[in-house]
């Protein structure tokens, strides 16, 4: 494998992208139960609110954040001639993603631990 920051960002983008697409269909299946009324909805929602899913949700949030920030990076590269700053841009994406991930993930983690 030819390893560069670009390759690393590409693999992360692919993995998070496929994971999010698969999640989208699961998400629609859960929300779609509203067609069968409130009881069915709450029941199906309960199955995806077990502690395991709480932690998966944090991973999901991280995936969304990384994919979004990396997408912004690609838009910047597309519209401005900034290829020479490619490494700095990659590290900037990682830093922003981690900060946003903590901002969003920490309350989720505390909530999952304290129970709700």
């Amino acid at each position: 494998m030819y390893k560069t920051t670009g390759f690393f960002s590409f693999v992360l983008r692919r993995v998070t992208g496929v994971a999010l697409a698969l999640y989208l269909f699961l998400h629609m299946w859960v929300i779609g139960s509203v067609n069968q009324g409130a009881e069915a909805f709450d029941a199906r929602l309960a199955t995806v609110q077990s502690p395991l899913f709480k932690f998966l949700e944090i991973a999901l949030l991280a995936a969304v954040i990384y994919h979004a920030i990396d997408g912004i990076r690609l838009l910047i590269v597309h519209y401005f001639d900034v290829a020479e700053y490619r490494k700095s841009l990659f590290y900037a994406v990682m830093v922003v993603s981690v900060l946003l991930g903590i901002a969003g993930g920490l309350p989720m983690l505390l909530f999952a631990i304290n129970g709700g």
Partner: protein
Amino acid sequence: MATNGTSKTAVIRIQKFNPDKDKKPYLKEYTVTVTPDTTILDALEEIKATQDGTLTFRRSCRHAICGSCAMNVNGHNTLVCNQRVNAHLDKKGMITVRPLPYLPIVKDMVVDRTSFWDQYQRIKPWLVPPEDVPETEFRMTPEEVKALNDAEKCIMCGACYSACTVTAMNKSYIGPHALLKASLRIQDPRDSITDERLVEISGADGAYRCHTIFNCIDACPKNLNPTQAIETLRKLAQKRAAYVDARKERQKTL
């Protein structure tokens, strides 16, 4: 070989593969004495002359212009003729030299570049002049010439093509080298088949297959920028009709 400075020993670890004897490539270590001026190519030549006559690699000009000696040094594609051994030694005083990745190995450092040249041919890398060629010379503005400068410097060494993750997965992809050359011809105001070229590079194997991984820029020994050329091609492909019309207008005043 120049002999200024102190000489020291370095270990060159080389990936060997002989299709007649070996099942798969393996690494072999050679110890050579190097001065600060010794290039990696010098070291390879010395190994071939004094230690292992079977070592096979391509090289020609030794001045970083023929594009024969592109190899993978410590995981990065580069020309070996303009890289000094000392600059690439790792902490253990070792250099690892492999053939260009993702291409079929013929023997040792020699790889099969068929797909590389096929994709190059595909984009018609020559100039197709308009029918009414002026009697004197074509007149281009300095800005137009500047846009072409980058791609003109390409020496077709294959470092970018072999570094690209997309070509690793899919040999139908046109590849950074050919897209860079395509952008040269498409932006050339003297060229008359702009439409045909833009259709080709906006196809399923063209510029949109690029995922902006930047490996081509990291690999290029001439510091060219195929990624930006591909981004330019994408922009031009999206306004193809307008661009082709503008070209026809431009050619009236060449």
